[in-house]
């Protein structure tokens, strides 16, 4: 664990979190309905942010877990860390944030998050943090604006009132992976848990924006090439 143990996690205001996310998240974008932001501090500086909020598609998500009440789940919708943080920081920060959610919002029974296998990764950090993989789908939500080359999410297109134009754009090639963390271990998923090995079968492997299988990464690890988390 090393210096990751020294990280302090605090609740920070949206303005601070968003400016950090804009600078350090691969998309450069924030999620407007994030309502809970954790800041990760090391050596007296802010080096990471995790933003949580209600799922945009709450009705479509709530049934993932049996008997979930309207306000009993939350989405981890942005994570941004700078390179300064040592190995295992991300999973440690997630772990602390989950403990804080358990303490301050005991009504939350589970957390959902998505890994963007088109531009970022297949969810290495989620797997290292105890999340269960519950979905691998072809990406349709993220599309490239052919004029600007900018990646636009379907929700962003809706807010920008360009949905009709958006539908004509080509989705970015790759998968979206859905992960769930059960805070309340008595909760039951309504969907099957997908073994992580399926990530390679679905050709969904990605790490730091590069297409790479889990198998190749394990090989790299055994050759001594370090990766930040277990996969």
């Amino acid at each position, binding site marked *: 664990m090393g210096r990751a143990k020294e990280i302090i996690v605090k609740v920070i205001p949206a303005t601070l979190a968003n400016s950090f996310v804009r600078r350090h998240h691969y998309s450069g974008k924030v999620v407007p309905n994030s309502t*809970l932001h954790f800041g990760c501090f090391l050596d*007296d*500086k*802010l080096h990471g942010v995790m933003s949580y909020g209600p799922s945009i598609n709450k009705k479509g998500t709530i049934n993932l877990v049996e008997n979930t009440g309207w306000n009993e789940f939350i989405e981890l919708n942005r994570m941004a860390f700078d*390179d300064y943080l040592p190995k295992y920081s991300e999973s440690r920060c997630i772990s602390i944030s989950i403990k804080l959610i358990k303490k301050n919002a005991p009504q939350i029974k589970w957390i959902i998050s998505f890994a963007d296998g088109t531009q970022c990764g297949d969810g290495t950090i989620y797997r290292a943090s105890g999340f269960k993989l519950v979905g691998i789908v072809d990406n349709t939500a993220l599309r490239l604006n052919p004029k600007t080359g900018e990646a636009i999410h379907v929700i962003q297109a809706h807010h920008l009132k360009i949905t009709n134009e958006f539908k004509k754009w080509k989705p970015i090639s790759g998968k979206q992976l859905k992960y769930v963390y059960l805070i309340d271990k008595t909760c039951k998923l309504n969907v099957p848990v997908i073994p992580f090995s399926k990530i390679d079968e679905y050709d969904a492997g990605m790490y730091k924006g590069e297409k790479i299988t889990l198998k190749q990464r394990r090989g790299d690890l055994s050759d001594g090439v370090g990766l930040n988390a277990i996969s």
Partner: protein
Amino acid sequence: MKAELFDIEDIKLNPNNPRTITKVQKEKLMKSIKEFPQMLNIRPLVVDEDNMVLGGNMRYQTLVELGYKQVPVIKAMDLTPEQKQEFIIKDNIAFGEWDWDVLQTEWEMETLWDWGLDSGGFEVDKNLFDTNFKLAEGDKSPFQQITFTLSDEQHTIVKNAMSDIKQTEEFKYCETFGNENSNGNALYLLIQQWAEQKK
């Protein structure tokens, strides 16, 4: 080009120097020079033909404050004004990124701070924040909001229809399901009447 020793009073600060230094950074630079003065020979100041500093304005100011009388200097002759401007910027650009894993393994972090290495990150006092928060509880709100986009013409028709139905007896006795938003109730009544007509 070889460095030569110049009298510090012959060197001029660049009046248009685009770099600034904080008090803390200056203190670190001062400490760094005191502890490792050989660096000045290895990495001398760079001046133009008029002895104006092109590279090392911060060091120059610090050396003056430290009471240096002579400093190693490289004189860059024959640079065009454009090349001087380019040099001033390029001299301060660090290409590449630090590998913090290597730094944290091979160096003492405290020493790196002392040397003036910046960890990046946002300088924010963590003590301003705590670990308490509240999130929404309970069931879904029984009220919903819907946003529509209408053309000006559609907007006028819808608004007039809602205004008209609000004047009727039916509106007074319309089932509101606890909703106190009159526009919502008017829209509901209009649609309910349309649905009745369709039967």
